[in-house]
C-alpha cells in the first residue's frame, strides 16, 4: 500500500496493542487472540449489528476539561469504561480505547443473548445438517446455559421449505442474522431474500414472485451460521464430522476458486469455498460446486484399451508408442485443463516424438461479473508459459485440422480433450493412422481412438495451475483414482520413458523439480512452497476482478 495507515493504541483485556486505523473492534480483538462470538458479522458484508452476540465492555479515553485525554502513569490514556455493553462489530477502533472481552458483564450478556436466541430453537440437532459446524451448538456450549428456562409454547415456523432449486430453509433454526439477505443483495446482486413478520414470528422469506436461483445461492448456506439454510444437494447425505477436508482448487474456470473437498472413503460429498482474498474471497458459484458429480459418473474410463479391447498398462503404452512411430508425421492436442506438471511432460513428449504442431482447445463463455471469467479453462496461462500454445490459444487448430484432412498429419496425441469439440468430424478421426488419447470420460474421441489411456480427474491428483491473474495455485488429492485409471503425469512419464527420454521421474515432486529447473518462472519453487493460498507467479493480468 502506498499510503501508510496510522496505528492506533487499543487496550485489549489490559494489554496495550496497536492496530491499523479503520480496523473493526471485533477484528482487533480477534487479532489479539481474543475471539468474540458473533453471528451476523461477516468481514465481506455490511454490518447490521442485529445478533447482539459480539457484546463487549468498552471504554473511551478519559477527557480532561481541556478536551485532552488524561494520561496515566504508563503513558497511555486513562480509560473511562462505559457502564453498558457495546457490540464490537459495528465499532471502529479509536486511539486510546479499551476493551474487556471476558469480564463478568460480558459473560452475563453473552449468556443472556444465547438464551434469547435459543428460546424457539427446535433442538433438532440429530437431523440437522449443520450439526458439527453450527455456531449455535458451539456458542451454546462455550457461552450459554446448560438448561432452558423457557416453559411456554415455542413459536412454530415453516420447516423444510425449498427457497430455490438448491437451498432448503428451516425457519425454526434461524437466528435472523440476515447474512443471507445481505449476501444476496450486496454480493450476488439478486435481492430476493428478506424478513417478513415481526417480533418472535419474524422469518426469512423469499420474494413471493421469485426464487433463490442465483448461481451464488449456495454461498448463503456457507455463511448461514446455523442450520437454517442447508444445501438441498448435501441434505441428509453425510454428517460433517465424517468428512475429510482437502484443500484444493476448482478447475471449472480460469479463476480457480479455492475450495475444500469433503470426502469420506473416496466418495465426494460436497465442495465448499475456502477463504482466499486474492482469488475468490469467501465465495464460489453453485455450478462449480456441483461439478464433482461428473467424477464418478457412468461414462468414466477405468481401463486402458487398445482398439476398444481392455489391455494392461504396459501393453497400452507400448502399442501407443509403436503406432505413433509407425504413423510418421504427428501432432498434439493438449489441454488447458492439465496441470503445469502434465503440460511440462507433454512438451517433452512433443519434443521426443518430433511434434512441432501442437495447441490447446480454448473454452470461452460469458463472464458473470462476479467470479466466473470469460476463460473457462483453468490453466491457459500455464499452457502458454510452457509453450503448448501460442499467445492466443487455438490458433493452430485450423491448421492442424487442415493437415489431417490433407493427410500430412497421420497421428495425433490427444491429452484429455475431445477433438470433435474443435471441428474434427468422425471421418477426420477415422483417417488418422494413429490416435492416442488420455481421457477421464468416454467421448467421441475415445470411441474413435486406437489407444485410450484413462487419466485422473482434478480431485484425484496433485499438481499446480496458473489462474487468469497469473497466480500459481495447488491441487491436492482428495480421493483415490477410480479403477485402473492412472495419474496423467504417470501416463506421460511412461510414454516419455518409452520414447527414450532420460528424465528420471518417480513422483510428482520429481516432475515439479525438473520443471522448476527448466522454466525460469518456477525457479526455486516446489509444491510445498506454493502453499494453500497460492503465490503470484506472473504479473497480475488486467482481467475483470471479482466485484465482491
Amino acid at each position, binding site marked *: 500500500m502506498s499510503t501508510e495507515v496510522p496505528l492506533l493504541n487499543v487496550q485489549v483485556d489490559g494489554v496495550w496493542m496497536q492496530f491499523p486505523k479503520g480496523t473493526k473492534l471485533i477484528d482487533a480483538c480477534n487479532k489479539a487472540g481474543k475471539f468474540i462470538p458473533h453471528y451476523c458479522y461477516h468481514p465481506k458484508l455490511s454490518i447490521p449489528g442485529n445478533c447482539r452476540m459480539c457484546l463487549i465492555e468498552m471504554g473511551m479515553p478519559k477527557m480532561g476539561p481541556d478536551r485532552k485525554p488524561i494520561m496515566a502513569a504508563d503513558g497511555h490514556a486513562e480509560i473511562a469504561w462505559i457502564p453498558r455493553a457495546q457490540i464490537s462489530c459495528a465499532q471502529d477502533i479509536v486511539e486510546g480505547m479499551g476493551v474487556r472481552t471476558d469480564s463478568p458483564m460480558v459473560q452475563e450478556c453473552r449468556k443472556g443473548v444465547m438464551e434469547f436466541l435459543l428460546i424457539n430453537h*427446535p*433442538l*433438532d*440437532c*440429530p*437431523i440437522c445438517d449443520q*450439526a458439527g459446524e453450527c455456531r449455535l451448538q458451539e456458542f451454546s456450549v462455550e457461552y450459554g446455559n446448560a438448561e432452558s428456562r423457557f416453559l411456554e409454547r415455542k413459536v412454530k415456523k415453516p*420447516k*423444510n421449505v425449498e427457497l430455490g432449486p438448491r437451498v432448503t430453509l428451516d425457519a425454526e433454526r434461524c437466528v435472523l442474522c440476515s447474512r443471507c439477505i445481505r449476501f444476496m443483495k450486496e454480493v450476488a446482486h439478486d435481492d430476493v431474500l428478506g424478513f417478513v413478520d415481526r417480533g418472535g414470528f419474524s422469518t426469512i422469506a423469499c420474494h413471493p414472485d421469485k426464487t433463490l436461483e442465483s448461481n451464488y445461492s449456495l454461498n448463503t448456506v456457507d455463511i448461514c451460521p446455523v442450520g437454517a439454510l442447508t444445501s438441498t444437494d448435501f*441434505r*441428509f*447425505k*453425510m*454428517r460433517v*464430522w*465424517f468428512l475429510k477436508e482437502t484443500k484444493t482448487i476448482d478447475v471449472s474456470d480460469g479463476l480457480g476458486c479455492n475450495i475444500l473437498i469433503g470426502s469420506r472413503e473416496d466418495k465426494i460429498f460436497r465442495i465448499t469455498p475456502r477463504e482466499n482474498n486474492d482469488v475468490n474471497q469467501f465465495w464460489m458459484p453453485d455450478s462449480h460446486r456441483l461439478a464433482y458429480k461428473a467424477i464418478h459418473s457412468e461414462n468414466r474410463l477405468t481401463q486402458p484399451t487398445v482398439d476398444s479391447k481392455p489391455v494392461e498398462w504396459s501393453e497400452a503404452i507400448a502399442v501407443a508408442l509403436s503406432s505413433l512411430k509407425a504413423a510418421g508425421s504427428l501432432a498434439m492436442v493438449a489441454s488447458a485443463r492439465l496441470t503445469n506438471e502434465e503440460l511440462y511432460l507433454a512438451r517433452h513428449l512433443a519434443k521426443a516424438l518430433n511434434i512441432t504442431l501442437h495447441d490447446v482447445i480454448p473454452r470461452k463463455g460469458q463472464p458473470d461479473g462476479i467470479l466466473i471469467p470469460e476463460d473457462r479453462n483453468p490453466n491457459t496461462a500455464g499452457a502458454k508459459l510452457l509453450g503448448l500454445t501460442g499467445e492466443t490459444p487455438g490458433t493452430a487448430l485450423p491448421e492442424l485440422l487442415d493437415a489431417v484432412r490433407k493427410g500430412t498429419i497421420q497421428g495425433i496425441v490427444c491429452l484429455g480433450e475431445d477433438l470433435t469439440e474443435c471441428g474434427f468430424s468422425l471421418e477426420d478421426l477415422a483417417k488418422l493412422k494413429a490416435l492416442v488419447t488420455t481421457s477421464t470420460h468416454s467421448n467421441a474421441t475415445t470411441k474413435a481412438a486406437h489407444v485410450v489411456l484413462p487419466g485422473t480427474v482434478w480431485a484425484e491428483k496433485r499438481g499446480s495451475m496458473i489462474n487468469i491473474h497469473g497466480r500459481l495455485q495447488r491441487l491436492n488429492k482428495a480421493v483415490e483414482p477410480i479403477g485402473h485409471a492412472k495419474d496423467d503425469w504417470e501416463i506421460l512419464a511412461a510414454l516419455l520413458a518409452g520414447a527414450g527420454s532420460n528424465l528420471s521421474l518417480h513422483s510428482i515432486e520429481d516432475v515439479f523439480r525438473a520443471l522448476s529447473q527448466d522454466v525460469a518462472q518456477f525457479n526455486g519453487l516446489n509444491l510445498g512452497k506454493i502453499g494453500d493460498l497460492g503465490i503470484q507467479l506472473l504479473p497480475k493480468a488486467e482481467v475483470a476482478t471479482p466485484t465482491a
Partner: protein
Amino acid sequence: MAYTVRRPNLTFWEKLYLPNIVAGLAITFKHLRKMLAGETKIVMQYPEEKWDAHLPEYYRGAPTLVMDEHGREKCVSCQLCEFICPPRAIRITPGSVPNDSQFAKAEKAPEAFDIDMARCIYCGLCEEVCPEQAIFLRKDYAVTGESRADMVHHKTKLYELGGTMPDLVHKWNPEK
C-alpha cells in the same frame, strides 16, 4: 514409571507348600465323593437349557433398533453411533422421510442400517450416545452365521430383534 511390587511375607507353613497341596486335594476328593453320590449338578445342558431367565436387566446383548408405539422408526440416522462405535461395526446410509408420510416431521430416517456382528464388541456406547433412544442392546447373545455377510445385521433384522419401545422422545410428534 517403574515401581516395585512388594512380595507377601510367607509364614513357615506357607513356605513349606505341602499343606496347601493337601488342602486342595481334600476339596477335589470332596467333590469326587459328591459326584459319585449323585449330589452335584453343575453343568447346564446348553443349548437345550439356557440361563436366559437369569440375565440381569443391564445385560448387554446384540444391539437392536426399536420403533415407537406408532410404528415410527425412532432412528433419525444422526450417525452418532456410527461415530462412537469403537470397532466401527455400524454403517448407516441416511435417507429422508417422504413429505406425505405421517412421520414427515422427523424428516430423516435411515435408508440402510448395518451392524457387523462379527465386529461388535457389545460395549453399549451406541445405546449410550443415541439422542433418540432408538438403539438398545437387548438380550440376544447367540449371534451365528455361516459367512461374514451372514454376520451383518441389516435394518429389517435389527427392527425384528428390537421390536417396539414406548416413545420416550416426543419432539417428532406432529402436534408438538
